């Protein structure tokens, strides 16, 4: 099917700024779902609040646009009620790791079969460019006019530490591998975290001396490297991309089914 068969054209044009990476992520998500040969009625998208969350309205799946930071909590309710559905939660960096950080680590701990896609643009874009938990030390933002003294999270390390059974990182520059990673994350039976570095030329870029979206994409290419590459040995500053964790663990809905069986045997 064509990409447009998966979107709600009547709700276009979308609200994302020219040069924003989020549209690239949306297209890649559609391509991944298409490759998995999922029916549109099989897919549920649950989002929070922010630029990322608006992906919900544009996709022709079951879409639930919730409140800031809580997408995974709503998604947990949906998934436990209808485990046969494929539940995907696209979130922003602030959404997933600031206000929603608690829900992310606990969803990881439970290993509930939800795919968390972190559309990481290193900034609060919807509110006009405030520093987020992934804004770099020394970066600028409207709330860090002198320089950011917060240290950023490494989302991958955090997800691994919380016990997620699938953890990956990619960027909007590396579209082909992004599609493959999203495909694997959705197919994975358990909690998946995919961090996608996504450019925000309007707010992050302007404040941090990126002349254009293209410059930011080039930066992603120049400053990232596949996991375990020789370049990383030479330059430890490079950010690794690829699949960090992909392991089988008991999945939460399956475990709950066992509880139901145990409870009914106790009668």
């Amino acid at each position, binding site marked *: 099917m064509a990409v447009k068969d998966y979107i709600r054209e009547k709700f276009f044009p979308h609200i994302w700024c020219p040069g924003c990476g989020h549209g690239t992520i949306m297209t890649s998500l559609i391509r991944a779902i298409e490759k998995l040969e999922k029916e549109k009625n099989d897919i549920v998208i649950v989002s929070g609040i922010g630029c990322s969350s608006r992906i919900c309205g544009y996709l022709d799946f079951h879409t639930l646009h919730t409140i800031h930071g809580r997408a995974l909590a709503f998604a947990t*309710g949906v998934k436990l009620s209808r485990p046969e559905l494929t539940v995907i939660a696209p979130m922003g960096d602030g959404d997933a790791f600031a206000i929603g950080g608690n829900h992310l680590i*606990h969803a990881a701990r439970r290993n509930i079969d939800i795919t968390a896609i972190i559309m990481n643009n290193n900034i609060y874009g919807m509110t006009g460019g405030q520093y987020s938990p992934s804004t770099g030390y020394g970066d600028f933002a409207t709330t860090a006019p002198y320089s950011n003294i917060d240290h950023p999270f490494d989302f991958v390390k955090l997800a691994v530490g919380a016990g997620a059974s699938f953890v990956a990182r990619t960027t909007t520059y590396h579209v082909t591998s992004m599609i493959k990673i999203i495909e694997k994350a959705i197919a994975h039976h358990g909690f998946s975290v995919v961090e996608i570095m996504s450019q925000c030329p309007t707010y992050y870029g302007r404040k941090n001396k990126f002349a254009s979206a293209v410059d930011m994409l080039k930066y992603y290419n120049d400053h990232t490297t596949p996991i375990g590459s020789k370049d990383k040995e030479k330059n430890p500053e490079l950010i690794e991309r690829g699949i960090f964790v992909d392991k089988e663990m008991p999945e939460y809905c399956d475990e*709950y089914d066992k509880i139901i069986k145990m409870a009914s045997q106790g009668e």
Partner: protein
Amino acid sequence: MKDNVVFVQGNEAFVEAALYAGLDFFAGYPITPSTEIAELLALRLPKKEGVFIQMEDEISSMCAIIGASLTGKKVMTATSGPGFSLKQEAIGFAVMTETPSVIINVQRGGPSTGLPTSGSQGDVMQARWGTHGEHAIITMTASNNQDAFAITVDAFNLSETFRTPVILLFDEIVAHTRERLIIPEPGEIKVIERLKTSVKEGTDYHPNLPREDGRLPMSDFGGVHRYNVTGLAHDMWGFPTTDSTTVYNLMHHLVDKIQGHSKEITRTKEYYIDDAECLLISYGSSARTALHVVEDRRLRGEKIGLLELQTLWPFPAEVVKKKSVNARCVIVVEMNMGQIVHEVKKAVDDPEKVFLANQINGSFIQPTDVLNIIRIIQGKGA
């Protein structure tokens, strides 16, 4: 004795009632004095293939039940004071998205951590206005196990009928008092199921287009119709909009569907009201004290009665006005610094005849607390 007669605390009665009403999904977080509700449902729900989940916090518990409700489940969460504060934003999401859900708040002493193991009725106004923005909401309460059972079933019915969160505003005293409960036979109390759309698969379903009677038939989220749900102001497709006419219609729909059906939602109980010169108005555990006073003073020949409110919001102003018209004085009995008393003053013909008998020290309000007020009004001194 029949085995449907049980000796239980209020929290157990709420659980029995929720299961009777068809509860499928519960998410919660431990908090005193409502924890027994979660403990019992952890045991009971899996036996009927229902879902119990202990979430990571109060906020996510509320969010999880909304997600589950959208898929067609009957859902509930239970909490107390601080947890009720934390749930407010998500309750607003349920209001805006018209998602049926039942929230039990077993009130305890506040503000803040307050008195976790003591009774209070300090959350009446929070139940009404706790979440931000203009909205209407249904709040119910009861004073004993048998009534709490019926009211809890009612709460599920109203939630499904009006597609709204319903708050069950119980208090620690009702929740922890052990007394007899007769569990009704199936069918004895009517259980209302959700109104589902008749729109066929493959045909456009407008999730937010009210019928002529104002009701919105639902389609199970994740089922045959794909649609968008959002907490933003939305159009008939459930898609965000700022169009002033659409927003105007949405806001009126959200408020009118509840305020306009106040009569259907109102539940009250009357004791010795017809000739009462002194009318007590009370609710929840305080109504037990009020009833004791009324029965005691009746034995002494005093013309005193009680109007017990089981619906707090929308406030049953018409009933209060009608029932208090012949009373020379109206005394509101509640365990706060006066919350329902202001609503009563607005409802009656003469606000000067309305007084407050209250207690706020963590102890259950005593008959003497009420009698002292009566004596002062009668000019006898406390």
